């Protein structure tokens, strides 16, 4: 059984992001990059799945040499193999999905894990697109997972509750916080990762289906207003909520 996990290398959520001079991309200077937080759940689930059902794990990442930092982290956590689909291009979701799907096919992976979304562009689409392109089943935003033989039982997070879904392999699972506690890379894992090779491949050229016209920062937050400090302010507060911001 081959288990694949797709990994993205994204700006740390604590970074201050500013728009680059071209107004079409972010300025990456001074920004630190980390493993996409949702992908950490994907890596952990891939490792847990391997521990349970056996097989081989492979981490697949699309991007430039900087992605190796995140790939190495996955290897240190215990993933067996790695593929870097090396490019400097910025692709949109469908292009990313096509490139990844090609590699997943090459790897012959039957279980594929993705984070439910990348915290950079937040489209939350690549996992499901990949499943469609591969003709795999897909369960997204998963917080509980059991795989027995060919059967997959997954618990999904939905608005206000949980949904339990059953399907079969091959499957793409996108992972949500709560599914597991990602392990720390042990020092032995880090040492072992040194011996693992990152297979670098040049992905086939792909043209984007969407074009980024411009990026801008959200408008600066309006300063707050204190309309009173005791109960006498309530009528005025209600009036403002009704008439000014129109939320009640």
């Amino acid at each position, binding site marked *: 059984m081959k288990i694949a996990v797709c990994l993205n290398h994204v700006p*740390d*959520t*604590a*970074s201050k992001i500013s728009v680059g001079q071209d107004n079409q991309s972010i300025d990456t200077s001074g920004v*630190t*990059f*980390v*493993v996409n*937080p949702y992908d*950490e759940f994907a890596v952990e689930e891939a490792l847990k799945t391997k521990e349970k059902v056996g097989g081989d794990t492979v981490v697949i990442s699309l991007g430039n040499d900087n992605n190796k930092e995140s790939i*190495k*982290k996955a290897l*240190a956590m215990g993933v067996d193999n790695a593929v870097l689909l090396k490019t400097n291009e910025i692709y949109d979701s469908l292009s990313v999905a096509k490139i990844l799907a090609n590699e997943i096919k090459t790897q012959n992976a039957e279980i594929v894990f993705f984070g439910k979304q990348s915290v950079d562009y937040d489209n939350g689409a690549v996992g499901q697109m990949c499943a469609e392109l591969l003709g795999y089943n897909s369960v997204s935003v998963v917080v509980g997972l059991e795989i027995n033989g060919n059967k997959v039982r997954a618990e999904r997070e939905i608005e206000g509750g949980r949904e339990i879904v059953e399907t079969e392999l091959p499957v793409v699972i996108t992972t949500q916080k709560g599914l597991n506690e*990602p*392990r*720390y*890379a*042990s*020092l*032995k*894992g*880090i*040492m072992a990762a*040194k011996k693992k090779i990152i297979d670098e491949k040049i992905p086939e050229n792909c043209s984007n289906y969407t074009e980024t016209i411009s990026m801008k920062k959200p408008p600066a937050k309006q300063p707050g207003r204190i309309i009173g400090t005791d109960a006498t302010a309530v009528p005025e507060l209600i009036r403002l909520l009704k008439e000014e911001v129109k939320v009640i």
Partner: protein
Amino acid sequence: MSAYRGVDYLDLDSLLSEEEILVRNNIYQFVRQEVIPVIEKHYEEGKFPLHLVPKMAELGIFGITLPEKYGCANMNNVVYGLVMQELERGDSGIRSFTSVQSSLVMYPIYTFGSEKQKEYWLPKLAKGEVIGCFGLTEPDFGSNPAGMLTKAEKTDNGFILNGSKMWITNGSIADIAIIWAKLEGNIRGFIVEKERKGFTAVEMKGKHSLRASVTSELILDNVEIPEENLLPQSMGLKSALMCLNQARYSIAWGVTGAMIECYLSALDYSKSRIQFDKPIAAYQMTQEKLVYMLTEITKSQLLNLQIGRLKDQNKVKHTHISMAKRNNCEKALEIAQIAREILGANGILNEYPVMRHAANLHSVKTYEGTHEMHTLIIGEDITGFQAFT
């Protein structure tokens, strides 16, 4: 997980290998997620967070520099140092636990033990299944361990130990103690299991410092141990001092972690605390404090790194380690106190780590060779005059 946040004013990360950075960042995450959220409570209650030991073992940090065949990570001394730095950013107590387990228990078994002792104890210590402590200091013999009163007497099957040890980190939670005792006048090391009849560990209470660490008194009252519990290669006080040298090295790195934590806390606070309509960071006196802290941290980092590299090349002298222990502990305590001043009254609250670090550092400056002793060790080295006595 968020990205690593440390202090690196001179791009010293460029002097570290990728693997060294990976390990450091990994321990950083561990400390943020597992240590920081629980440490204040443990500190207040005067308890060591024992539940962290299996997690630390899983990370592989006990006996980190020892060979893989004993279940260890076989990493270099710079990695060891960086791990200690990150652990002490959590608390000196966590770092102290690890220093003792690695440098004062696993190291002497590895260095002075028989193959049988190594094969039996090291994997268990690496997994955290066995906790160790180190008994050298006595109530009346601190800086002068050569005067120790604890004695070992040869019997037909082994030895009988008598004496008492004090200020023993991990004492009451330890499964084994490395006890230093005089056998026919020569100081030797012995492994004493806690179950041995006549062995008692009494926790010392009332500490205002290192509250999240266990400190005990060990009493050895006619403790009988078999011949095989002697560390065969331990010969004289020098062997015990070799262990301390390892531990002092880890302290030099550890306290740099405490400095980093205090500095970052003060830096963040100074930028958000408004007085007279502007952040206190905008005042010259605050800036002077911050710059002093940053400069001292950078100097400590350079000392540590060079000593670590020398250690990896087997070129380090114990006087080098004394220099780092002496300087870094003194500066760390100073930085913690300056940070407390920048934080004003807030600095005494447990919402911020600085008061806890300051209190811890008072111990760390004293243990493993006082500031004064390290001064005299280097003094003797450069002048040729021994000035201890």
